[in-house]
């Protein structure tokens, strides 16, 4: 069945269909051809082809039996390393089908695991090394512990360049009979920042409104689907309207499902753009750090954030 979700419909299924990542691509392809791969570590930003390449590798290895020999897990979704270990154990217990003597486990977002969980993962990798190969993906290889890195062949993925993104857009536009202008390509490239998944999603979301796409439409979609800004919360606080500031805070946290820690991160960056004296900025930063510490320690995020907003109200009055 052909998918109606374009990131799936246009996901490359062979090495030759992939765009960008030339070096990585060649090396992974030649490894796969030997029918025997080591553990692999794919490191790079979102939407650059890590999962896609993992899928191509297993399809190349196992052909039509790939589904039976492939397990996909997401480290940020699975509750704890024990769940990962159990699933791996169940999957690795039976022998692989076909001519390749191992199965493949793809563990996405492996850098979401704590260092302790990664140690446990390392042991699991060793225990099943005769029957399983792991492909790990992460945004930053520095967040993967050394013992795992040393057991893997590491491949780096770069953000896609404009010419690659353009290729993808043109191909989809042609097949879906969309009319697009050169500015649209420019706008999509800027909007997705080299993330191919986001680019295709933006394109499909825009096409859902109209098949004749112009730059204005794309820019409207980009700004309408951007997560709401925490800045407005601080603006109210600095202006002295505490009530509205905290109502807005709860509203954004609930609607966008963002955590207290995410909010703190944005606040910390936003302090430097506030119209207050330098010494007050330092004091506010200290307060923000303390609030973050308390939240990490297990305090109620909303209470700590309210206390922080009260400090911003005071800062707005010119006091620290």
């Amino acid at each position, binding site marked *: *069945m052909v*998918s*109606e*979700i*374009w*990131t*799936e419909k246009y996901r490359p299924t062979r090495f030759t269909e992939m765009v960008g990542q030339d070096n990585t691509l060649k090396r992974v392809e030649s490894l796969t051809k030997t029918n025997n791969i080591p553990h692999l570590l794919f490191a790079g930003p*979102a939407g650059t082809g890590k*999962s896609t390449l993992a*899928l191509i590798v297993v399809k190349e290895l196992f052909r039509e039996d790939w589904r039976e020999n492939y397990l*996909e897990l*997401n480290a*940020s*979704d699975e509750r704890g390393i024990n769940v990962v270990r159990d699933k791996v154990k169940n999957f690795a217990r039976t022998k692989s089908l076909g001519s390749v003597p191992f199965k493949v486990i793809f563990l*996405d*977002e492996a850098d*979401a695991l704590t260092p302790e969980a990664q140690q446990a993962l390392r042991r699991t990798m060793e225990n099943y090394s005769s029957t399983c190969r792991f492909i790990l993906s992460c945004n930053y290889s520095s967040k993967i512990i050394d013992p795992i890195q040393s057991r893997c062949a590491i491949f780096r993925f770069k953000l896609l360049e404009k010419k690659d993104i353009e290729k993808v857009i043109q191909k989809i536009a042609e097949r879906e009979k969309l009319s697009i202008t050169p500015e649209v390509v420019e706008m999509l490239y800027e909007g997705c920042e080299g993330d191919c*998944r*986001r680019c295709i*999603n*933006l394109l*499909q*979301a*825009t096409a*859902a*409104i109209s098949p004749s796409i112009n730059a204005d439409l794309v820019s409207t*979609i980009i700004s*309408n*689907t*951007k*997560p709401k800004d925490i800045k407005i919360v601080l603006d109210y606080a600095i202006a*002295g309207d*505490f*009530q509205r500031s*905290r109502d807005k805070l*709860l509203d954004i946290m*609930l*609607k966008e*499902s963002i955590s207290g820690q995410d909010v703190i991160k944005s606040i910390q960056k936003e302090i430097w753009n506030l119209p207050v004296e330098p010494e007050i900025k330092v004091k506010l930063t200290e307060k923000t750090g303390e*609030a973050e510490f*308390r939240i990490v*320690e*297990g*305090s*109620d995020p*909303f*209470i*700590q954030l*309210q*206390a922080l907003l*009260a*400090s911003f*109200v*005071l800062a707005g*009055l010119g*006091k620290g």
Partner: protein
Amino acid sequence: MPWVEIYRPKRFSEIKGQNDAIEKIKIFLKNFQKGKKALMLYGPPGTGKTTLAYAAAAETDSEIFELNASDLRNKEKLKAVLGPALEQMSLTNDNKIILVDEVDGISKEDWGGLPELVGFLEDANWPIIITANDIWDKSFSALRKECELVQLKEIDYKTIKDVLIAILKKEDKFMDNNLLTGISVKAKGDLRAAINDLQIAVGMEDPSKILENDRNKEVDIFNALRVIFKEKPNDNTLRIFDSVNMPIDQIMLWLEENIPAEYKGAELQKAYDALSMADVFKGRIYKQQYWRFLVYENILLSYGIASAKDGIKRGFTNYKKPERILKIWLNNQRTAKKVTIARKYAQHVHIGQKRAMFEFPLLRLILKNPEARKELKLEKEEEEYLDRQN
């Protein structure tokens, strides 16, 4: 959205249980001319004061011009706020009603300019409506003389019950008759409280539990809040929570909700410092199971917050029931489907659920396509969620 907002009456004809007041307001508006007294609607919480003011505006095709506490500080401030509106009026000739909502909730320092306001507005061309809970405090006597008083009575339980039944019908929900009577009686004339209780009860596994959470408790908590926010801290402040028949975690929510109603500026910050530190100790108790920390949590919440103010506070403050938990609960109800859709999508396109949640605004547009919905095997409720929000 809370039902109290969704089902807030828009017209006089939709307002139940306040026919006398409506007649008086009609007469007031009909006979209104420049230089007349202001109208003051007073009565207990949840009897429809603000609703009546807005309905009055709708009936006369007027726009509400609401003044808030800080506008009332002095004449200059007032002129600055009203000036542009005055000019606007002369251009468009639109009707306006000036609303000063919950005048007794305004703190003393903001309140000083109020008699001045009334004098000033007598020269204006618009009717003024003031709402208040309790106007018999001595400090209100000057204002009282300047106004035409309309008292709102507690709404009787049968009327409340009728309103609840009407809401249930519109929501297509059912509830046991005895339970409805229980909720209506328990509200003690406060229609807003009854509707809030109804909305919570409908979502509970065992709705009859709503009656256990008796509003009597709130008499104690209101008293405790008054002591903490208004009085000078003393030894009794330390023991104030003993008289409150409510777990400390819940008391904390009440304090959190109402601090900004009383404190401003530096007071606000000090009070939140105490509250947030109390919360830190609460966390330490749970983590370490070391219950002596409760002493610190208690002192910070009572004496700590009480000592954040300079001197004492006067006047009546209409403390609000904590809304945060209700809002979170409502939001979870609303977004439950969002989570399941994101999970299906995440598995289908090989990404994590968190990223799927992050990309949801785009996903919403992509899933306008019925074929894509079929592909994800979305349930009927999930499709309804996508359609509703568009």
